[in-house]
């Protein structure tokens, strides 16, 4: 039965200084999390152009996560604030385009929070699994 379960594809943009290290630590600690997530390491969550997110959805992602350092913790001082602003506006726009709220998630995960990373990935996978694939209209 498990093979018929919908396996969502999730793209996670993670920053080099916090979340990627947390993900690495989660791996070292042998924490188990869903293999549905595909990590893309960037120097900063501020590098995430909204075009990346939309392009991910266009290419078949069912959910996108943006993960970076906590506020006031950014390696480049204010990259994550820019991310937050983009995220808020992009989310508003995606909802107009018919995307459910859970398909895009912003999460601050520091290098010392592998457990938080694991939890975020698990939650995201479950939420998106419930939503199913991105609905296509495919009209002529």
């Amino acid at each position, binding site marked *: 039965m498990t093979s018929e379960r919908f396996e969502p594809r999730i793209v996670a943009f993670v920053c080099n200084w916090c979340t990627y290290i947390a993900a690495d630590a989660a791996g070292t600690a042998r924490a188990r999390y869903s293999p549905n997530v595909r990590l893309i390491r960037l120097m900063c969550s501020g590098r995430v*152009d*909204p*075009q990346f*997110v*939309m*392009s991910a*959805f*266009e290419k078949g992602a069912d959910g996108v996560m943006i993960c970076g350092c906590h*506020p006031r913790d950014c390696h480049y001082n*204010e990259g994550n*604030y*820019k991310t*937050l*602003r*983009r995220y*808020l*506006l*992009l989310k*508003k*726009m995606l909802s*107009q*385009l*018919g*995307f459910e709220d859970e398909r895009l998630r912003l999460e601050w995960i520091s290098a010392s929070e592998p457990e938080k990373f694991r939890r975020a990935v698990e939650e995201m996978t479950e939420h998106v699994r419930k939503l199913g694939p*991105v*609905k*296509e*209209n*495919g*009209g*002529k």
Partner: protein
Amino acid sequence: MAKKPKVAFYWCASCGGCEEAVVDLAEAVLDVVAAVDIVFWPVALDFKVEDVEAMKDGSITVSFINGAVRLSEQEEMAKLLRKKSQVVIAFGSCSHMGGIPGLANLWDKDSIFDYYYHKGPTVQGQNGSEPLMKVEVPEGVLELPSFWDTVKSLDQVIKVDYYLPGCPPTPKLLANAVQALLSGKLPPPGSVLAGTRALCHECNLNESKPEKLLLKELKRVHEVQVDPKKCLLAQGVLCLGPVTRGGCEALCIGGNMPCTGCFGPTDEVKDYGAKGVAFLSSIVDFNEEKDIAKVLEKVPDPVGLFYRYSLPTSFMRRTLEVKRE
């Protein structure tokens, strides 16, 4: 006498403003007419589809097609003109990127028909009738073109050689394009025949744009008396100049109105709306979620703002769910 190049104009889903732009060439239109032979122009000249069908393939030097494609008839005409023309130019925002009609891609045929022919308020009241593609009457069968779920840009239907952006393209850009065609000095195929840099570079108010642009408050145009000598963004009016291709010489800004992005993105940008989001987010001068949300309240309709002219060519085309009220 040497043979004059043949030119055709056609309109698909458009408002007629692009035709107006051709007429706006004013006296220069006479030079154009003297230099070329207009063989098809439904809005102004009486040629029929049969006349185009009778032409040899490739015999039209250039076809200017404006408007988005949303009816089967428009697709047929676009394909016919493609076959008969050496060069096809997508004329205006609608054929370039889908334009304002493209915003209908937030819905589909059924939801649009349902609203306009059944639910929407009218003076006379709805009587439940809606257009059919085919109807039989005693005299025979009447047919209408079919209405698609999806509005498309011209290059999603046929191969397009060049794009003339704008809503509508300025007479100057049109004249330049015609000049380039006549002289044979054409840029590489697929080019957009306008500027390559952002509009700010050619805007008269660029000098008054602050080095670091940060806003604590956005103002909508009706809420502010615009100072015509100061960058609109610096005054809090959301102008899309920084993310829009130049070439129009900042006409709207000259009229104290912000740029709405009809020239589309620059060559490097694939998705205008997403870039618009990035741009606006970068100038909001707050770091706390509630403050940011407050500023963004002034952007109640991001899709309408950032995809005003380009929804059909965005990354999100047709991966969206259709709204049903």
